[in-house]
Each structure stands twice: as C-alpha cells, then as structure tokens.
C-alpha cells in the first residue's frame, strides 16, 4: 500500500465513505460474467456444501449437497456444477480469430472468453481445491463419476491458477477488484468482507455488515452460528428441503452484493490497457481449450521444478507489466510514482521541436521539451523516460532544476526533418513523464507461455495420473 492509498483511507475514515483510488477500471468486465458463490462444509478441506451461480442477476441457480457427508451426492453436485459451467465455457469456443506469430505457427484465439466472478480470495482458493479434488476422477473403472466431473476439475484448476496471474480477469475476486479501485476506512483484512466493503463504497460503514444474521458471510466458510443452529439440526433431521432453503437464505444476500459490485465496477470507464490484457487472457484460455481437445492429461499435482521456476518468472513479468500499465492508464495510479519521484507531471513551458543531433545522414530529430512541475523529481540525467500521452515515444531526461525539467524526445520521431504535427507537445500542454518503462509493449501479440507449444521451452514433465489419483477419497 502506498502513502497515497493510506491518505485515501484516512480520508475515507474521516468522511465516512470510501474514496476512489483509481479513475478508470483496471479489470476486464464481461458482458455476461458468471457469478459464482461457493460454500464449503466447515471443517472439511474441500467438501462442497452449495453454490449459487449464473450469468443473470434475476436468474441464479442454486446447487446444494443436501446430505453433505454423502460422497455420492458430492459428485452429483460436481456434475450439476459442470452442467452449468461447461456449457458457459464452451459457448466461447465457437468464435475464433487467427493470430500470426513471429517464429511460430499461427494459432486460433477465441474472440471472447468466459469470466468467473467469485466473492473473495478464499472463494478462489476453494475453487482451486474443488478442481484439485475432481480433475483426476475417472468415468470408468471403480468409483466411476460422470465424465463431466474430471473435465470440470481441469477447468476449475485452470481458472484457479490463472487467477494468480497478475492482471488476468478470467476469474477474479470482486473484493480484490473493488479494493483496487476504492479505499475504505477500514483495514485490508476487513475489506475481505464483501458486505462491509460494499457498504463503505455505497452508503458508508455499517455494523450490520459484520452481523451474520443480516449479512451472512460471502463464503466459502459458513457462519458457525448458522452451522450450529440451522444446518446441523436440518442435516440431523435429513430435511433436504429445509437445508436447501436455509442455504439459499445464506447465499442470496451475497448474490445481490455481487451484482451491486458488478454495477459499481461497470460505472468506471475501462482503462486503456485492459483490452490488451484481456487479449492475453483470451490467448491463454484458447491454449487451455486446445490442450484439452488434444487429450492432454490433467494438470499435475505439483509443478515440476522447471515449470515452477518459469511460472514464477512469468508471474513477475506480468506483475511488472500490470503495474506499469495501470500507471500509464490512470493518472491517480501514476500519482504514486510522482510522489516517489519516479514520475513527474506539469505544464510545457518551452519547446525546441526541431532540435536535432548528429550531422549529415546520421542527423536525427531530437526535440527538447521543458516542463514546469511541482513534483519532487528524483531522476538522474540520462534516465530513459516514457509518457502516457504519447506511448510510442521514448525520451530522456536532460536536466531537472528548480521545478523545471528538460526532456529530450529520443524515440518515435520518424525520419523527417521536421516533426509530424502533434508529435511534440505544445507550450501550455499538460504532460507526464516517468522512468517506468513499457518494454512489454513490444510484444503484445505473443501468446502466453502456456500457449507456447511444448516443443519450445523444453519438454514439460508429463504428469501421468495414477489409479490412486482417480480413487482418492473425498471425505
């Protein structure tokens, strides 16, 4: 958390309402997101209890394990979940585009991809465990399960893993997304409570948010009081209807909050780089779909050492790219870098558009721009700079003194003797320069590493699921 966000939190505390910390939306928001609220049986690692899900707010589908200790019912529940999710996922596979790649074969990328919205991080972790507990099952042999169950498991595993990829929007926790755009007047820990966070953003803090009788927890854990007073007696009595209705009662308030959160996020204009990250999501999703279509085995129980290392590197790159992109997309995020002296913004007070360097044929246009800024610039002369106003351009800091910064434009000026109209900022224009560089922008068309054919980057450790995997208990 930066000082800027801390300040926003303090302001929120004082004013009794959450404060914006973003001016644009930094996540993709699907037209038709799949809202999914899973509940887990308390005390169990990954035993499902219920889920409320759907793509339309007026039409949620409730799936309940009416006898949570019954293993067969768990698999039946998983099959029901598959019957909802797999068609949704499949509906995106029809429309594709062909993407050309350098040094590699072209590939097919879906035009749009699914998006699953879960209340919180714990929900994502639970989805991942659900994937883990179902993907090795088999449709034949001892303990057969419906064939859709292992398939669902592979998809849930995929979505769960992709959710850890910075900037991905295929599956996100709405508390995380809300928290990225608003600062509440409570701690990050308390922000994980969807009801509390939504209240801060909309009406101001409310103690009701922590009262499980008013706002049941958004899962996957249920309220212990509900377990003791409602669920346990209903299970004991074998009252399936009562269990179903009780769980509906626990889930519906969260359902409303989820859609309220969707509305809140939709009101924000989309950030400029969101489209590009979504394109990567589409590429990744396409690769996974193809992987399954080719009959590849389910994801291994654990990454091999090589896979883990490359995954880590990939995540780090994605994280860096995500941070830079957000700063370029959003002045309020860029402000954090201005505060630390890695960026500055101000008015252009002087320009030398036709300034050039070199002689004869190697003579190049290097316009100079002087910016007047109040920001505390902490950049050394020679530092390479970029600017959100002209993303294709590169610049260099010449000198910074007394609130006046001289910048030399070094890239993107073309070959002409005079600059193209608009390529050099005019006096009076507001500009922002930063040392954050946008290297990744050079290769937006490249697919994710997951989409790289296995022949590139070395053979992955082939995971052969064993009988034991298939027969594993689910208790």
């Amino acid at each position, binding site marked *: *958390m*930066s*000082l*800027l966000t*801390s*300040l*926003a*939190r*303090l*302001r929120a*505390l*004082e004013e009794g309402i959450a404060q*914006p910390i973003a*001016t644009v939306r930094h996540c993709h928001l699907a037209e038709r997101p799949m809202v999914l609220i899973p509940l887990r*049986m*308390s*005390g*169990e*690692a*990954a035993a499902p209890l219920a889920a409320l899900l759907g793509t339309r707010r007026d039409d949620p589908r409730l799936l309940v394990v009416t006898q949570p200790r019954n293993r067969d019912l768990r698999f039946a529940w998983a099959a029901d979940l598959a019957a909802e999710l797999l068609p949704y996922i499949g509906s995106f596979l029809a429309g594709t585009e062909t993407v050309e790649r350098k040094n590699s074969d072209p590939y097919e990328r879906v035009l749009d991809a699914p998006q699953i919205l879960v209340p919180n991080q714990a929900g994502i972790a639970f989805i991942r*465990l659900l994937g*883990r*507990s179902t993907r090795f099952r088999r449709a034949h042999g001892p303990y057969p399960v419906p064939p859709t169950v292992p398939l669902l498991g592979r998809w849930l595993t995929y979505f769960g893993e992709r959710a850890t990829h910075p900037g991905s929007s295929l599956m996100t926790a709405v508390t995380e997304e809300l928290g990225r755009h608003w600062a509440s*007047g*409570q*701690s*990050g*820990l*308390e922000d994980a409570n969807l009801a509390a966070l939504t209240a801060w953003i909309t009406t101001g803090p409310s103690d009701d948010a*922590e009262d499980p009788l008013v706002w049941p927890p958004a899962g996957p854990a*249920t*309220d*212990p*009081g509900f*377990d*003791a007073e409602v*669920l*346990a007696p209903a299970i004991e009595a074998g009252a399936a209807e009562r269990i179903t209705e009780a769980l509906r009662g626990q889930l519906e308030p969260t359902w409303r909050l989820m859609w309220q959160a969707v509305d809140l996020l939709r009101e924000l204009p989309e950030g400029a780089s969101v489209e590009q990250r979504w394109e990567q999501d589409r590429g990744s999703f396409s690769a996974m779909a193809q992987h399954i279509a080719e009959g590849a085995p389910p994801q291994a*129980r*654990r990454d091999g050492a090589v896979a883990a290392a490359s995954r880590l590197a990939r995540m780090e790159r994605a994280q860096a790219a995500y941070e830079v992109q957000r700063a370029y997309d959003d*002045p*309020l995020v860029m*402000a954090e870098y*201005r*505060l630390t002296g890695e960026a500055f913004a101000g008015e252009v007070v002087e320009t030398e558009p036709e300034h050039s360097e070199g002689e004869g044929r190697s003579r190049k246009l290097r316009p100079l721009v002087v910016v007047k800024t*109040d*920001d*505390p610039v902490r950049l050394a002369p020679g530092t390479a700079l970029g600017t959100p106003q002209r993303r294709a351009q590169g610049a260099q800091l010449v000198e910074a003194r007394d609130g006046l910064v001289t910048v030399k434009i070094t890239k993107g000026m073309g070959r002409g003797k005079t600059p193209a109209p608009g390529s050099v900022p005019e006096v009076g224009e507001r500009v922002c320069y930063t040392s954050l560089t946008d290297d990744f922008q050079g290769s937006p068309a490249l697919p994710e590493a997951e989409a790289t054919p296995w022949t590139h980057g070395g053979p992955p450790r082939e995971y052969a699921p064993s009988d034991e995997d298939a027969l*594993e*208990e*689910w*208790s």
Partner: protein
Amino acid sequence: MNRLDALRGTTPPKPHDARAIAALAANPGCARRALLDGAGIDKDATARHLGFPAPFGQSPFAITRGNAFEALVKADGCAELLRMLREVLELPVAEVAYHDVENVGAHLRHTHTRALIDRAARDEHDSGTIYDHPLLGLEIAGHTAYLEPDVVAFQLGGRFHIVEIKSFAVIDGQADPAAVAAAARQAAVYVLALRRMLRELGHDPLRVAHDVVLVCPENFANRPVATLVDVRRQLAVLERQLSRMTGLDRLVEGLPEELTFDLLPGEDGLPTRPAAELADALRRTTARYAPDCLSTCDLCFFCRDEARQEGACDLLGRQVRDELGGVASAEEALGLADGSRAPAEGQEEIARLLRTAERLRRECLA
C-alpha cells in the same frame, strides 16, 4: 490479595489453555491484554458484558471433524501415529510402549505425567514411547496454567517430541499457512512447558525437540500424514512475551489504586457490574489495537470501537500506521496533509509527503 487478583476481583479466574497462551504472543505490545491475561480475567465474558461479544465461533462440524480425526490417529493402539513416527523420527519397531496418563484420576494426571517423563528421561530403556493425554503446567504471571498436548512422543535417541494433531488438510504437500502458523505457535507452548518440566526435574531441557510432529489429514481423505515443524522462532517470541508478563508489576504500578475489572458476578454467575463502569475501567489501560486483534483477542470489537472514537490510524492496519510513522490519529494526518496543521518536530518529512500526496490526489480527481 495481590494487585493482579484485585483487578479480577470476585470473578473466578479463567484458566489459560495453549491457544490463549499462544495468542499472547500475537500482540505483545498491548498492556491491556497483558494485564487482563496476567490477572486471569475471562476476556470473552468481559467483552460480552461490554456489549462487544467476540466474533469467534467454531462450527460444530469443524469440532466433530477435529475429534473424529484425533480419534482416528490414536485408534488401534496409535497404529497410525506409530507408522508416522517410524517414518519421520525413524522410531525402531520395538518402540511401541504406550502410556495413557489419563488412566489415573484427573487430580493425579499432572503428577503422573511428571513421574513418567522423569522415568523416561532417567532411564532410556523400557520407559515408554507414547504418552497420551499428558498434563503439563506452565507458570503465567504467578498462576499455573495446565496444558494438554495431544501426545508426547519419546524417541529412543533420548529426545521428547510434542505431537500436535490438527484436522486441516495438507494438500499435495501444502497447507493453509495461517493454520500451520497457529499450530506451530500452540505447539511451542507445549514445548516450553515440557522443557520447564524437565529442567525442574533436573534434566536437560533441550531434550525436548524444537521440531514438533504435526499430524494432519492428507489431501481429501482422512488419512493422517506427519510433518516435522521447527518452532524455534515461535518459542523465542513466546519466551519473550512470558518474561514480559512476569514484569507486570511495573504495569500494575501505574494504575490507580481502586481500579478493578471485576464483573461482580451475582448468585447466578451473571455479571452485575454496570457495563459503562467496566468500560471506563478498561479505558484506563493502554491498548494497542491492530486489525490482527480481530482474529486473536476477545476484546477486539471493544478496542476497535475505542480506536474508531479516537480516529486512530491503527484501525487501518499496521501498513498504514508504519507508512505514517509517528502520526497517530487520522485527524492529525489529514491536518498535515491539507496544511491546516503545522508539523511537530520530527514530522517535517512525513508532512511534506502528505502534502504532496494530498495535492496529487486533488489534481487527479479534479
């Protein structure tokens, strides 16, 4: 009656269990908690009487599952446990002797545990391998807290190991880090108690291993799996906090003579003390609220409410507090940010940052 007992007054003391002692280390800076715990005050009852009941609760399903798992680990002469100890501690096949300390009456359990442990420490042969239901004691601020580790295992090499049985799952070699950390903190309490017992008996306390055996269900089945967990760090934190609690005298000295947190239980055991009066008494002690309290201390809602009324930055979490280094209240920080308040000495740098931050926010949101 000593001062600590006077703080508790006529309310019966609440014995500490390992979880409570482990939680002591969670917010070592809080004088309020140190005093209440030191005096053996029932914080849960106190919070409820104040109208701020703690948000904790355990699902009956979780409790049932925990009990069933422990029974499974210990069933059939600890068959599962022996298998795991043979795996992780290389226990020889002959080492299977089992002592159930609970075979003696409840009042004798502690003595019996001592006798058995002493025998094991003295004579490494024929003394036993698994001690079930032992009862250890640990002195907390002048009171002995009795603790029941799940199992103590004695290994041929002359080392004792605490065995901690938990029902959270280890999936593909990974478990919920928060759950593991909590288990390690709790196990450290047992290690410390057993070490102190050995020292009292004249043995080398370090014969209690700092590696505890954590037994959890593996993957999605009920099958137990054991892992060795190093609790040295947790031990160090715990020892520091306990030594701090023996220094409670200094904290008590600063308190008004007549101060008490007595609930004045009536005949039916229900508190009769006016809640507002009790709240006032508590406010005479210094708290150090942090959002972490929400999962570790019964008084959390009371202290959070207090922090809210004071507009304390602590409400927003340690990160915010650290970032604001030295600026305690929201009002003060905002005053520095909009320039309506002049920085005190030492606040110049943070004030400058806050002012810039404020200007940037205004500019971007205009």
